[in-house]
């Protein structure tokens, strides 16, 4: 197995172009597990940890540009205000060791339906920046997931960064695990209120072949808030609204039974999380007035 160690972003893109079958490795917390379990035997590894451009974040035209190689630990300590939903999700990832190594870019690269960053990124309507020698393209994260553990990356492409607009309203992230730490999500939910656009963002994890938004629920809630003038009045939510929102989130999911949980429980828990998340987010919104 070859081990490629580019020292710059340009070198990394060149290496990927020259070795399209090389598997990028960032924190290695997914890649090394797969190698250990002999799930795959790539001809080459492309080590991205020496590419400084990937491990930085910056504010760029009002957006956070999060390098693909920024770890969860840094998201938690440095970006709690700019990326609250993602920071909440990051806090639930693995253990301190995993949060010190694991990256958001790696979570996208793995594209597991259970990845914890996805619901937060979907709710925040993040964009993913992909690059190759032939150029850079940006797509909504919701288009990035193409199937179970599959994504939109071309063989010569790397994930450069995630672009996220800082929140104009509260965000929440909730996850169900069968123990209180170090656990893969049985189901997860991300919520972002975008009062500037009078819009709602959602993300569902572990309850469909890919992470996905609950678009109908988003529209339902945005419209309900609009019709009652609640975006401006910030009055209490009408009785039943959070519940109805939860039901619509549940309707957007398509889970399966597996060793971690039943489809029925996943649906149930999504409805409960969505309801609670909305209640908390609205509470924050009211307090922020």
């Amino acid at each position, binding site marked *: 197995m070859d081990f490629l160690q580019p020292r710059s972003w340009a070198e990394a893109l060149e290496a990927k172009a020259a070795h399209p079958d090389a598997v990028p490795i960032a924190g290695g917390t997914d890649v090394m597990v797969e190698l*250990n*379990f*002999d799930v795959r035997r790539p001809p080459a590894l492309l080590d991205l940890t020496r590419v400084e451009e990937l491990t930085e974040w910056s504010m760029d035209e009002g957006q956070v540009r999060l390098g693909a190689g920024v770890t969860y630990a840094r998201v938690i300590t440095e970006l709690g205000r700019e990326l609250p939903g993602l920071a*909440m999700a990051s*806090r*639930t990832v693995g*253990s301190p060791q995993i949060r010190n190594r694991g990256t958001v870019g790696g979570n996208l690269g793995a594209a597991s339906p259970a990845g914890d960053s996805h619901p937060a990124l979907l709710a925040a309507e993040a964009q993913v920046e992909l690059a190759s020698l032939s150029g850079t393209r940006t797509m909504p994260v919701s288009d990035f997931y193409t199937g179970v553990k599959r994504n939109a990356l071309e063989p010569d492409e790397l994930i450069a960064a995630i672009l996220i607009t800082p929140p104009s309203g509260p965000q*929440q*992230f*909730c*996850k*169900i*695990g*069968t*123990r*209180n*730490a*170090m*656990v*893969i999500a*049985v189901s997860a939910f991300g919520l972002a209120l975008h009062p500037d656009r009078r819009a709602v963002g959602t993300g569902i994890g572990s309850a469909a072949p890919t992470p996905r938004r609950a678009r109908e629920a988003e529209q339902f809630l945005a419209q309900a808030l609009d019709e009652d003038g609640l975006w401006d009045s910030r009055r209490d939510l009408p009785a039943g609204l959070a519940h109805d929102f939860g039901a619509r989130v549940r309707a957007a999911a398509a889970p399966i039974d597996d*060793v*971690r*949980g*039943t489809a*029925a*429980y996943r649906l*149930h*828990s999504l409805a*409960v*999380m969505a309801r*609670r998340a909305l*209640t*908390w987010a609205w509470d924050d919104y009211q307090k922020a007035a």
Partner: protein
Amino acid sequence: MTTPTKVPTGAPTETASTAEGRIGDSPLRPDGVLKVTGEFAYSSDLWMDDMIWGATLRSPHPHARIVSVDIGAALATPGVCAVLTADDIPGRNAVGLEHDDQPVLAERVVRYQGEPVALVAADHPEIARQAVKKIVVDYQVLPAVTDGRQALDPSAPKVHEHGNLVRHFKIRKGDPAPSAPVVVSLDFEVGMQDQAFLGPESGLAVPAEDGGVDLYVATQWLHVDQRQVCQALGLPPERVRLSLAGVGGAFGGREDLSMHVHACLLALHTGKPVKMVYNREESFFGHVHRHPADLRYEFGAEADGTLVYGKVEIIFDGGAYASSTGAVVANGATMGLGPYRIPHVRVDCYGVYTNNPPCGAMRGFGCVQAAFAHEALMDELADRLGLDRVTIRQRNGMREGDENITGQRIDSAAPVAELLQIVRDMELPPSASEQRDLRDLPGGVANSTHGEGVVRGVGYAVTYKNVGFSEGFDDFSTARVRLEITGGEPVATVHTAAAEVGQGLITVEQQICRTELGVERVVVHPKDTQVGSGGSTSASRQTYVTGGAVKAACEAVRQRVLDRAAATIGVAANTLRLDGAKIVAESGDVVAALADVLGGDAVEETVEWRHRPTQRVDPETGQGDAHVQYAFSAHRAVVDVDVELGLVKVVALDTAQDVGKAINPDAVMGQIQGGSAQGMGLALMEEILVRDGKILNPSFTDYLIPTILDMPPMKIEILEYADPHAPYGLRGVGEPPTISSGPAVAAAIRQASGKALRRVPIRPEHITAS
């Protein structure tokens, strides 16, 4: 005796210690710092420069006929030194703890998924693993029986020719058709727990010049391994020498053989040292698990809650091979009704063969499964009668002098009522609404509740567990103790074959030597088969039995020293005592220096020590003094349950236990904390999921064990009611906490959720189900 020409690196060496610490102290363990700093050599660290690596081909099917095995391609792989099948076993291809029913390598038929079929040795572990995949086995899949109850049906597929019953244990006591004013009953199911030790099965077999083999291995009982390895290799014990390598946890999972014979076969075949290390996934197939159990319970009681009768049927699914199923069945039956006085009893406890993964020993050994059922039923009875759940247990709780259900009189402390009172009186944790940190709530930082749906519940459970081997088993341990003067100082050396698996036995052996001989320096010889059997590190027995042997050997050494001193001085030996480097007379005067008495000689004694004999029980009535000692513990669990999401946070798990005498109080605390966590794990999350005989979650990704955020801080109160029959009055400590913790947690969840919850582990969907 031949010793190997070379000793591998990573093999344990002598443990010397000059630390203070006698009985009742908690001296620092010699392995503690090494383990915390990552320097401790586990069996997976064993190394010899010229060693090669073994790997195992395992059956993908729960039940299949082996039509043919083609090893050609594997053998032709460059770097491969040997490929072996059942045909290459020189001795008997049959091993086992109670019955020799398990082949070393499958012959003609495989009976469970993961059963070893062939072995490869190669000069690199990766080559060995790749070569394993090149072995072509033609299987003809057979119908499998994968349900314990179904296995008893005469029409079920037969796992072995002699049928599917391993053991049926009957207890018949009192009125055969009792009645009572109040009757409660329930069915309960316990899932398959794993020992989940962190150090995978591993060892190194070194061929010796005498045609024998030296095996370095992580195990719980060197001599029972030796017997089986000899049998399979067709070699006498002198030529099969075992040494204990660094053990990374055991909990029962290392009582059966794993890679022992395999590595020896490969070593003898290739003439090279062979190392084998399972990876985590293979480990899940490489050892037995805790028996899943199907339990049906009925209690009859007076209106005041006094128990009149108990009727019990338990089916333990033993999987494909017997392992220790017979003894588990005996425990499940004889202690299956809990530490209560019950005059009329009918128990039918079965251990069966199925094509599921083999099950055998695990901490708590048959009592764990039963305790979930009898404790749930005690709560049910209390509720039915409107009685307090603790009071009803205290009212029926065993006391010293009572008879248990096999007619055995409990002849030392049985403080059931007191233990319950202690845990009930312990301060309760702050209420749920006072908790602000997410980590204190169900779900933790996963942020699934800020208090919504959270209901608190409190649950109690109490247990008693036999200590040591039972039913007439000749349960002994051997200790060799030597006293000599080295560098002007008295030094004791203690040699036993009793396995240190992380519980702290080495420290206890040193404490006993210091206490009995008054020396400071105690050297613990590496554990091996060059001394007689130490018996198993299981059944909470080592401090009792090997501790007893070390004590007795020290006493014998001391007697000889005093006899010698007495002869020189011309007084009676019984007027002298040994105090470190001095011989002291009744008057308190120092009458001789030990150095003068011993000169250059060493005084050495080897003692085989036995606890009081136990009895086989009557096969029809189950009556008899089956066990030598009982250990009692009680737990109180406090849980916060998010009843809407089914998530649980155990807020407190407090306990009281009678340990007779805390030989090493820190080690006692460690056993109680760890045991409680393991019992809680079964109540909440630990389960090997098996469908149609296949394991669905052979990894720590999906076999979950509690983390530090799942385990609450514990309040622990220790009672020391000496057992007059045991060395220093001690009682075994390791298992009771694993038995009473889980049922207390389950009871607390039932109280919070209002759900019956007749199965463990309790999953979120069980709590939320309508």
